[in-house]
């Protein structure tokens, strides 16, 4: 009996936490979903006209995702007009098939008033290649299963879902669908109840290479001698349809455009403008197919890298890309307190349109840095601290290790690491070398002046 009571209490509390926007008070007047399928990442834009039909102002909006696809969502970004809104995940035990987010509105929505919300989502690994194996000449086609209705905890008056495909689809669910060229539209569905869903299946040709970084480790090493060394280890993999049959150099080459269409031939990255000494290699040495251009107008360095071999479906490769940054642009010294430093570097890596499944960022601070604080613009999975021993380190450099799953170009934002460091202590290591050499020479002088022989000193 007390157990059930407890459960009830928990339920009540859980419900109470979202009581500010019970499904009764809000109604989606118009719910438009536009799904962009041009790349291997699914870009979903939801435009919702919300109306307050209750009798008190509402400050939050509940946003829902189906449970089965929510694990493939990397980012959810709500906007109201141009302002981005606060969002946080909330637990609701009543609906096990859904995941809920609570969006805090910019202004409280008065009774009877309407507002428009825009929610942008990026999904990964939603499409599956079909057929799973293709030859050199085939197009890569994929299958997507996606909700064509609106999955919202509120009732919806009008709902449409638009799929933008790269080409005319091979097949799609035709019920209540209209297709114009490469655009397939479902709906409008009218007067939908809460959490309504109807999964449709689309089969279409997509010749974007379905590449993903399985593993990215970035090391940012700060030296107070004036350099920040950045090095990325990237394991890239093409997860599209695997190559079957013959790989023929006669058929697949630089001038034959109709073979190997879904192949990763090159990747583009943008580095900070002051990056210098860029290198690109793997376990067995330099990869000689890359170039970097310092773009004055855009204030960046454009890096174009080509893998050693073009990545067909099912193939993978490891890359190491590194460069140096000057500390002037990224490391700030406190005006008042000369021992206080703030490091501002980007969290993510630099490849546009490619996601990292497992991302680790290691910030290596100089030996002797204390009171290390950090500030991140978004949530991450874990932060640990460790030591790193580099040239002539005695106690090791402090390292902050950030770990996050599913990192997108969106996460390439500036974050801050602040620490205290005595600027003079950079002289310890040169002094060590100096001392070692002095000791060596002193020893040699001493040895040269000692006579170990038993007999008389020989005359030369």
């Amino acid at each position, binding site marked *: 009996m007390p157990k059930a009571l407890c459960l009830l209490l928990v339920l009540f509390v859980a419900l109470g936490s979202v009581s500010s926007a019970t499904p009764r008070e809000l109604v989606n007047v118009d719910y438009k979903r536009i799904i962009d399928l041009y790349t291997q990442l699914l870009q979903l834009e939801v435009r919702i006209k919300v109306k307050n039909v209750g009798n008190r102002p509402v400050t939050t909006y509940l946003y829902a995702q189906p449970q089965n696809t929510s694990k493939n969502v990397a980012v959810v970004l709500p906007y109201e007009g141009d302002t981005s809104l606060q969002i946080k995940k909330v637990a609701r035990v009543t609906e096990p098939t859904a995941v809920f987010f609570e969006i805090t509105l910019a202004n409280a929505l008065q009774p009877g008033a309407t507002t428009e919300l825009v929610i942008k989502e990026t999904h990964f690994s939603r499409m599956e290649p079909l057929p799973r194996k293709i030859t050199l000449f085939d197009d890569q086609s994929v299958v997507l299963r996606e909700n064509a209705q609106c999955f919202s905890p509120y009732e919806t008056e009008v709902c449409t879902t638009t799929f933008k495909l790269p080409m005319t689809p091979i097949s799609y669910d035709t019920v209540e669908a209209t297709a114009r060229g490469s655009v397939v539209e479902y709906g409008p569905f009218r007067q939908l109840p809460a959490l309504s869903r109807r999964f449709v299946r689309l089969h279409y040709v997509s010749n974007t290479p379905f590449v993903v970084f399985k593993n990215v480790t970035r090391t940012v090493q700060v030296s107070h001698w004036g350099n920040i060394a950045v090095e990325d280890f990237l394991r890239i993999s093409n997860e599209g349809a695997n190559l079957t*049959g*013959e*790989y*023929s*150099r*006669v058929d697949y080459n630089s001038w034959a455009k109709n073979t190997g269409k879904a192949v990763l031939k090159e990747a583009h990255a943008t580095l900070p403008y002051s990056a210098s000494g860029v290198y690109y290699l*793997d*376990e*067995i*040495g*330099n*990869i*000689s*197919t890359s170039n970097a251009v310092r773009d004055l107008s855009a204030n960046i360095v454009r890096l174009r890298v080509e893998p*050693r*071999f073009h990545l067909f479906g*099912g*193939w*993978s*490769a*490891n890359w190491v890309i590194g460069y140096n940054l000057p500390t002037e642009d990224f490391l700030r010294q406190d005006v008042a307190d000369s021992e206080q430093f703030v490091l501002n570097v980007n969290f993510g890596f630099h490849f546009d349109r490619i996601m990292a499944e497992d991302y680790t960022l290691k910030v290596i601070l100089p030996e002797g840095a204390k009171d290390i604080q950090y500030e991140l613009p978004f949530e991450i999975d874990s932060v640990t601290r460790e030591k790193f*021993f*580099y*040239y*002539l*380190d*005695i106690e090791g450099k402090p390292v902050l290790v950030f770990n996050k799953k599913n990192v997108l170009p969106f996460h390439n934002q500036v974050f801050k690491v602040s620490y205290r460091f005595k600027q003079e202590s950079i002289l310890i290591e040169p002094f060590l070398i100096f001392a070692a050499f002095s000791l060596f020479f002193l020893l040699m002088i001493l040895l040269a002046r000692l006579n170990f022989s038993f007999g008389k000193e020989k005359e030369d």
Partner: protein
Amino acid sequence: MADQTGTKQSVGVFLQGAAEKWAPAFRMTILLMISILAVIVRVFSVIRFESVIHEFDPWFNYRTSKYLAKEGLYGLWNWFDSESWYPLGRSVGGTVYPGLMTTAGIIYWGLHALSIPVDIRNVCVFLAPIFAAFTAIAAFLLTKEITRRSEAGLIAAFFVAIVPSYMSRSVAGSYDNEAVAIFALVFTFYVFMKAVNTGSLLWGNFAALALFYMVSAWGGYAFIVNIIPIFIVAMFFKKFLRPADDDDLVLRRIYVAYSAFYVIGTFYAMQIPFVGFQAIHSSEHMASHGVFIFLQVYMFISWVRSFITKSAFRMLSRLFILTLVSLLVLGFLFLTFTGKTQWSGRSLTLLDPTYAKKYIPIIASVSEHQATTWSSFFFDLHYLIIFTPVGLYYCLRKPTAAKLFASLYVVLSVYFASVMVRLLLVLAPAVSVMAGIGVSYLFRKFTQAIRSSFEKPAKDKQGRQTTQKKRIPPELAAIGLIFVVYMCSTYAFHATNAGAESYSHPSIILASRDRNGNRFIIDDFRESYYWLRQNTAQDAKIMSWWDYGYQITGMSNRTVLVDNNTWNNTHIATVGMAMSSSEEDAYEICEKLDVDYVLVIFGGFSYYSGDDINKFLWMVRIGGGVFPHIKEEDYYGRGQYRIDQHATPTMLNCLMYKLCYYRFDEVKTDYWKPPGYDTVRGTEIGHKGFKLKRFEEAFTSERWIVRIYKVKPRENRDGLSIRSRSVVSMPEKLSEATLGGPTFKYHKYAHKLTAKRRRAL
């Protein structure tokens, strides 16, 4: 006037005093600069390409070093490498000279202990240049020990630091045994000379230690264990032919030095698992045993001599020496004929240059085992070969033990270098030392002549002019001096140029220029090796010719059938047979050997001449050596090796041909030429439009240099009832396999038999 000469003289005295005072400092500075030069002249390869391991053998050494750095010395000792010589494997610890890897490992661990975390690859890449600097210092010491003149030592150090022949094997990235072995060689000679000159037991021990390092680093240590006995025998000859006062003293010193060197050195040599008891019973070591016994006997006789009469002694000694020499020769002959002691194939090739060609094609097939051409002598040694005779003249004019040794070293290594290109490397320090002595001698003579022309003729106490020694006329001396300096500087330019242009190519990376003159990198090897590493199963077996074995295991981390170790001729011959058999037969061999991929190197598309088609005859020869149904004649069309329409059907249908030229006839390599035009052979291929049934193209690099084929699995019910017996069925006795006769007769007729059975079915 008198005052002026006085000041002149005082200035001269002052200068001389200052020079004498500062000479050691100058010497050290110059030697340091030579060492730095030796290092920086070798890093062209890193600047022009990258810090990467070069060529073939270094890849194995690098892989072993990585293993050593991770697992420690005992780990290496016990390492059974299952990635090579599939399915046999290789016990690395017992079949490797561990000196190089251990050196790299010690540097690696030492730096890490000093908290300098260097990468093992960089240690390996830069080991050879650093040891080149050590070699320069060792050459300085050796030359100084020989001539007792440090200026000769400095010139020799300068010569050896940049001699192209040595540079070819010690540029940054050339991580091979020779990189440390040449240092060990020169240093052992230096320490041994020191032992001979001092007659000290301690230096004899040091010489044994130096030998130990040499033995651990390179099979070429046999050179040392033979040249030193030869030198001792030569000293005896000298004693009888040109006796000198101090002969007995020198011989006694040699006795002390050699006894310590031999006993402890042999004992040390046995500690290397790869050498082991070979240090006792192999033919390479026989001379050292013989000379040791001979020395003992000789010293015993000398000792006896002091107790008996001269005539009795003469008779006794003759008897003794005669019996001893005949006993030694007889014993050696007995051991040789009964097979107790054996020369290794490479040593026999040295003694009889035609040996390998006749009996061991696998040794003859290696380009660096070919006889040296005159042009490569000049390219690799340049003007040193002109200065060397001068040094030899100087050394043999008044030979001391050390000078005689140096002369012997030069003469013997000239012979070895003529037999094998590779052994130019042993000659290079010898010639540098000798040329250093020669140039220093020339300098001394010329400058003496010039100086004496300024000095007043010296007068003796009676005021008469002393009879002047015959000197070179000063004008001639000046011209000669300029000429020598010019030649030395030309040598320096040539050496730098050779180092930068010829010897700094990693050979796994090729550089070329496009029509606008821009340099671009051809990276086909690494492209394909990396493809293997990333996109094949972890336990995939790659069949390729043995040249690429080390690179595949090193860069692709995959299992290979044969590699550059070439320890098992039969296994290599099996791969050779597979390559030279028809597709169907080769497929069966591949199946028997669990081959997943076949890798061939093909240069016909992009002018790369060191490819498998050019090496193919060696595969046929080596394969045919063990499996007689492969006949070299079958691959000659109209009397010569060719790939065009006149080639024989055997050639046009063999696996190597098919894998290299598969679909090659569909591309045009040259605008003016027909499709399928091979740019290396300069002909159109003879077999076009064929399909592969058993193999499937899995990868071909951008410029076609590397082609990888997948061995297709059998189709359902394919060959089930037909081939129940094995093609490569192993006989019960191993001796039959080496004879090759009965085993493969079956194979010879197998296809006919199968055809019959197929028809019957």
